[in-house]
């Protein structure tokens, strides 16, 4: 009876073209959008471009002028200074054409429109110039014979910092969006999970009523339908990961079989959530579907699908949420595979997924077994 029920559950769901079709198409379509949209972003973000700055000469300062001229033409220059009058400069600052206005006088002044990294670096540039001026003035006053040595020390390339890259793996943090896409696809398995309840509960459909009158025990019926839903969701997840890795060429690390495992377990989690939502309360199908979809969206939102640094914000202010949010757990499991050399963290995430799935399945079964209704 278990296999009989399983066979027909899978058959009926496969023939529900709408659901399976969109569960398969959803990650493909969104994956393509992400791939196209993010194609050049990482490069744009991590390359450092010269900062455009307006220069307004209030008073002649040949020393500073020579510093500016030495920058022009250099490939690794950090500023792009352009001379103009104050009105033009303010206009360009307002329109974000330049990041700041340098006023050349006895003492340098800087005007900016907002605070950001570029503005801070402009400030640093002005401070560096001022600093050198101060030190050399000090030297001229106290030890004029050592002024050249001091100047040489100041202009020497110190190379005091050795940069160490922490990982050879993919650190493009836009890949995080793809991890979240996998998580969202997994959680949409909840629609399949709810279908189990619609087919088995007398208060949700006539089909459920008929099945409740049959001699198949609830346990067997639910186990068969859950198995069917999970197998179907495994298929959807496999298609999702395969498409992302082999068609869109997204780098999900070099431990691909484990990525498939994580994605499939995520699918199990999604199905179990849907099963639980479908078995709780007395509201109708439409409201249940609404609740489930809204919950999935909310979980994915807090996992960072829409606002990229949301997970970081959550980690900072409500860290426990990332441990229990299924979307965060699923995306983190793939991130762990990508970034850490050992499997400890990955194992923890898999265990969390299994625990969440087990919890929701058990709760769902408790809600539905031996159920009689006050009203159907």
């Amino acid at each position, binding site marked *: 009876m278990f296999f009989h029920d399983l066979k027909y559950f899978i058959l009926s769901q496969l023939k529900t073209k709408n659901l399976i079709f969109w569960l398969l198409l959803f990650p493909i379509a969104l994956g393509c959008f992400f791939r196209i949209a993010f194609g050049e972003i990482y490069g744009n973000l991590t390359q450092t471009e010269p900062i455009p700055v307006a220069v307004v000469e209030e008073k002649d300062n040949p020393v500073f002028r020579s510093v500016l001229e030495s920058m022009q033409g250099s490939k690794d220059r950090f500023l792009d200074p352009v001379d103009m009058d104050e009105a033009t400069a303010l206009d360009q600052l307002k329109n974000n054409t330049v990041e700041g206005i340098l006023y050349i006088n006895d003492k340098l002044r800087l005007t900016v429109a907002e605070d950001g990294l570029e503005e801070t670096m402009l400030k640093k540039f002005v401070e560096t110039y001022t600093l050198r001026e101060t030190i050399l003035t000090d030297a001229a006053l106290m030890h004029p014979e050592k002024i050249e040595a001091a100047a040489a020390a100041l202009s020497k390339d110190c190379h005091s910092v050795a940069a160490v890259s922490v990982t050879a793996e993919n650190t493009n943090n836009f890949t995080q969006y793809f991890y979240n896409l996998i998580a969202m696809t997994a959680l949409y398995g909840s629609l399949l999970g709810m279908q189990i309840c619609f087919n088995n509960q007398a208060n949700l459909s006539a089909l459920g009523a008929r099945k409740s*009158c049959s001699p198949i025990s609830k346990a067997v019926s639910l186990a068969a339908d859950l198995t069917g839903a999970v197998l179907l969701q495994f298929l959807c997840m496999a298609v999702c990961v395969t498409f992302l890795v082999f068609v869109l060429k997204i780098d999900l690390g070099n431990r691909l079989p484990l990525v498939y495992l994580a994605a499939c377990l995520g699918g199990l989690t999604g199905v179990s959530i849907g099963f639980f939502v479908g078995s709780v309360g007395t509201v109708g199908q439409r409201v249940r579907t609404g609740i489930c979809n809204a919950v999935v969206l909310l979980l994915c939102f807090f996992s960072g699908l829409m606002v990229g640094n949301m997970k970081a914000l959550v980690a900072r202010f409500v860290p426990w949420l990332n441990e229990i949010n299924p979307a965060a757990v699923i995306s983190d499991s793939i991130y762990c595979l990508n970034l850490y050399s050992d499997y400890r963290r990955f194992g923890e995430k898999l265990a969390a997924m299994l625990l969440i799935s087990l919890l929701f399945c058990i709760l769902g079964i408790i809600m539905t077994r031996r159920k009689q209704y006050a009203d159907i």
Partner: protein
Amino acid sequence: MENTVIKIENLVKRYGDLIALDHFSLAIREGEIFGLLGPNGSGKTTTINCMLSLLAFDKGSIEIFGQKMTPVNYDIKKQIGIIMQDVAVFNELTVYENIDYFCGLYITDKAERKRCVMEAVEFTGLGEFLKFYPKKLSGGLLRRLNIACGIAHKPRLIILDEPTIAVDPQSRNKILEGIQKLNRMGATIVYTSHYMEEVEQICTRVAIMDKGKKIAEGTKDELKRMIKNTETITVEVLGLSEAIRNEIVQLPHVYRTEYDGERLIVFCSGGTHNLIRVLDVFRTHEIRVGRVYSELPTLNDVFLEITGKELRDRKGDSHVLS
């Protein structure tokens, strides 16, 4: 009671303040086609759902095949076939797949199941529609599919809850014939409806319900004997005077008349040749009449006399429950 298949004692079911079943008791014997008749909202479907342990009830007891009915009494469930008011099939599976699926919940042996499925298909006349999907079937065929799914496993007890709603007359007749055939093959049938013609046609015993109570129970003849009216004579006549009406009322066994200007209805209790005596009055006074017909009482008359309203209330009654 010997060979009692279903025994319901003092069943009480409330939906909040509304009492859906009010100390309802029933006993259905093996081999009967038992009709549960009542208007919309009388509690028929509530009774069925309680019987099947789908609904929790507040008081009372239900036994089927001598055992207490519970949601996990699978031995009893194996012997019951249910045809619900709402069509309960998978829209995504074909006719054959639907029957096979539901039969498979009762019969595990593949070969036997296949045989049962094909017999059910033949029984319900769905042979040409095996590969059709439910969406493509007419209302009547869909109802037949619904029945096939409920009887394929050859249950001892078959419960049909208003199976002929929205069904064409041809399909309806087929369904009723089929039910009688199933009964002849040994099944006990519980049939709920608010169509008294169907109940009168096939049921051996009937219980009439209203507002959660059983108001009458017995064979059709027993029920009809419960009421005063034994014959209703209808005569089309125009311009009938009060004097003639009074003369007719004075006839033996006539206890009441009604006249709307075009038709005279004469209610008789007992006696024979009542029609002849009524027609004699018209002949004597040389009054011309149109159509004349005499009817024996129906279950509707029984219901009307007991409750003061029709089984199918033309004014529209409560549709909270059925």
